[in-house]
């Protein structure tokens, strides 16, 4: 039983670590900060699982594939949808305080799905799940099967001729480095730090993903970046107003001749304010008017028992009482559908290196359904751990493939600003070319990863899901998954074939 190194201590990382430890494997979990600080604790609205009457994993599968505009891997998505009800029950048995109705887990309606399918714990689902999962991991820490390195970051991947044999990590304060042997599971979260404002955590800088990319792991569908339609700017970041608020009765509007115009109710009479996120964001971008989210129809009781976190966030950070006044909102960066290229077993193109959670692509295609990423993180973590256990660690003496490079602050700010303006919700050739030019002048590993995303966006000459090109407004079904790889300082781009998914638009 060769050891396993998990990079990242969020939900995907802990899920992988627990799966391996339960099977008697020794796991080292590496993260710059403890699990309590991972972005996963910020997740609000809930997690999808076909538990409702008349619902089925098949329908969950269909909604996911359709919202992802037919790019997600169907076999992988079916596996995830099938596993979801069991995962929800397991989380409950680990002590997650989901909202309960009768004796069962309550379900809320979430965007892009016609059925109530989302288990939730008020509007702090991520925190509640993480508390339960952290305490389960603690059991294995005590037994010595899970070892934590909670102030360490990835500094390099060890590669032998046969693949990845481990990695080097560094104490973030002392710089002291450690070499860890074993299969490596990357669970590094999204690439937030490539941009300047987002809803997630500052800790997900993208630096570790950039090291993996430069060491040979490919990036898939990087251009699909979810702009959540209801975010609000505060100094230094964007805060999310969870989709749960619309699920509980919130309505989006803008002013037209001084009167509220409920644009989503007009645009999509069936799903209305719960249309998929890409659809709402695009609508807001095209309207070009200040949008508002009206939560005044929501009862005080629902605020207290189902949305207490959202209420608190508005009062503290926006200084606005959503029970009395509509919230001005705009789209903001929220989730990365693209990420490290993996197969259905969660192995990257580098043998011995696996990836799970938001840092890899797989389940969400061109647009993610709310509630599917907590699920994808847990499920992906389990699958990645099983694959690592089954495969064992590649042999040979690994050498550090590529040394981490520190990025000067000026360059980081320049990159973040360029990415934010070039890769907004609506893109075009001229803007993307400007972005690539800017990134070409910044020669370090993080800008190279940024360039891979920009080049993928430039090459995808269509509008699909979260990728909207004003110069190519239609979906072009000939375009497949985009894959970018590093070749020294260059980015190589190729398009992969998409399968026929058996679900129709």
């Amino acid at each position, binding site marked *: 039983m060769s050891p396993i190194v998990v990079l990242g201590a969020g939900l995907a990382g802990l899920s992988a670590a627990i799966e391996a430890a339960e099977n008697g494997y020794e796991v080292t979990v590496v993260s710059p*900060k403890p699990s*309590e600080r991972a972005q996963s604790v910020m997740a609000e609205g809930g997690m999808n699982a076909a538990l409702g009457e008349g619902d089925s994993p098949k329908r969950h599968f269909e909604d996911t594939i359709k919202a992802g505009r037919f790019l997600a891997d169907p076999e992988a998505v079916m596996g995830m949808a099938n596993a979801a009800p069991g995962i929800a029950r397991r989380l409950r048995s680990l*002590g997650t*305080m989901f909202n309960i109705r009768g004796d069962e887990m309550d379900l809320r309606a979430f965007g892009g799905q016609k059925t109530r399918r989302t288990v939730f714990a008020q509007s702090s689902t991520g925190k509640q799940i993480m508390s339960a999962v952290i305490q389960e991991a*603690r059991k294995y820490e005590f037994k010595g099967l899970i070892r934590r390195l909670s102030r360490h970051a990835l500094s390099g991947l060890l590669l032998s001729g046969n693949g990845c044999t481990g990695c080097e990590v560094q104490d973030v304060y002392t710089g002291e480095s450690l070499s860890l042997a074993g299969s490596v599971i990357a669970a590094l979260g999204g690439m937030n730090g490539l941009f300047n404002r987002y809803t997630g*955590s500052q800790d997900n800088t993208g630096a570790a993903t950039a090291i993996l990319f430069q060491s040979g792991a490919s990036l898939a569908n990087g251009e699909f970046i979810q702009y959540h339609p209801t975010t609000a700017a505060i*100094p230094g970041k964007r805060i999310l107003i969870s989709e749960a608020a619309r699920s509980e009765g919130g309505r989006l509007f803008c002013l037209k001749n001084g009167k509220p115009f409920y644009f989503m109710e007009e645009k999509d009479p069936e799903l209305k304010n719960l249309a998929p996120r890409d659809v709402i964001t695009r609508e807001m971008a095209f309207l070009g008017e200040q949008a508002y989210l009206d939560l005044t129809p929501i009862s005080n009781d629902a605020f207290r028992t189902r949305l207490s976190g959202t209420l608190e966030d508005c009062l503290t950070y926006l200084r606005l009482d959503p029970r009395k006044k509509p919230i001005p909102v705009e789209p903001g960066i929220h989730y990365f559908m693209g990420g490290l290229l993996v197969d259905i077993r969660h192995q990257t193109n580098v043998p011995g290196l696996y990836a799970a959670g938001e840092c890899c692509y797989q389940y969400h295609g061109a647009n993610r359904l709310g509630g599917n990423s907590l699920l994808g993180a847990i499920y992906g973590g389990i699958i990645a751990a099983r694959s690592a256990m089954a495969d064992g660690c590649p042999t040979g003496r690994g050498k550090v493939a590529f040394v981490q490079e520190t990025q000067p602050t000026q360059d980081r700010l320049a990159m973040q600003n360029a990415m934010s303006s070039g890769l907004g919700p609506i893109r075009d050739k001229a803007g993307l070319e400007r972005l690539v030019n800017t990134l070409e002048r910044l020669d370090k590993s993080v800008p190279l990863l940024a360039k891979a995303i920009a080049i993928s966006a430039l090459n995808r000459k269509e509008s699909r899901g979260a990728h909207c090109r004003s110069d190519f407004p239609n979906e072009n079904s000939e375009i497949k998954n985009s894959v970018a790889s590093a070749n020294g300082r260059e980015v190589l781009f190729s398009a992969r074939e998409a399968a026929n998914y058996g679900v129709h638009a």
Partner: protein
Amino acid sequence: MEYTLDIARQSPGGKPWRQTFLVEDSGESSVSTILDSISSQVSLDAEGEPAEPVVWECGCLQGKCGACAMRINGVPRLACSAFLREFPKRRILVEPLGKFPVIKDLAVDRSGMFESLKQAKLWLEGEAFNSKFRHDACYQSAMCLMCGCCLDVCPNFMPDEEFFGAALAVNAYRILEQSEAKSIALEYKKRYWHTCGKSLSCDKVCPAKLPVEELMARANAIAIWGK
């Protein structure tokens, strides 16, 4: 408006000292926002000297991850929810939490907190037992940020001693409630109940606004009185 920030600085092995910064702000920024702007560029201190970036921890900038706990005008709290407008005198003293070893500047080593929950064996052996009457309290217990503010104000907490303070009691509560096995009651007595002097300063200072006193009372009822 001009605000004056006095920031405690310390290098590994070095003596603590203070550096003053003058910042222009409407008052809407939080202490984190200011620390972020001071540390992400070369900033000048009040004397006009270029300052080394300030080292501190943050993550969510939204009161959800507990990373940014520090003492602000003497009170332990989260820098990301301490807004400048709350300080009408416009002079703010920013120091690291006082009970934990300083790593550098405002960053402290809180690993002992995580270790303590492990030593107290806070996990479930079997399936969680869920009662709808305890749902709210268990939910609150699981909202604990592990930021350390409650230990910083606790008159009885000293690092490296057996007493683990409110962070332990709050988290132990839901395990006591959800498990059949009452073995952790022993750990609870040893590591919390025997030493807690009921000053309840932890209850007032909790940045997640947890009902700390209520959770402790409930935990006591199970662990000590067997209810």
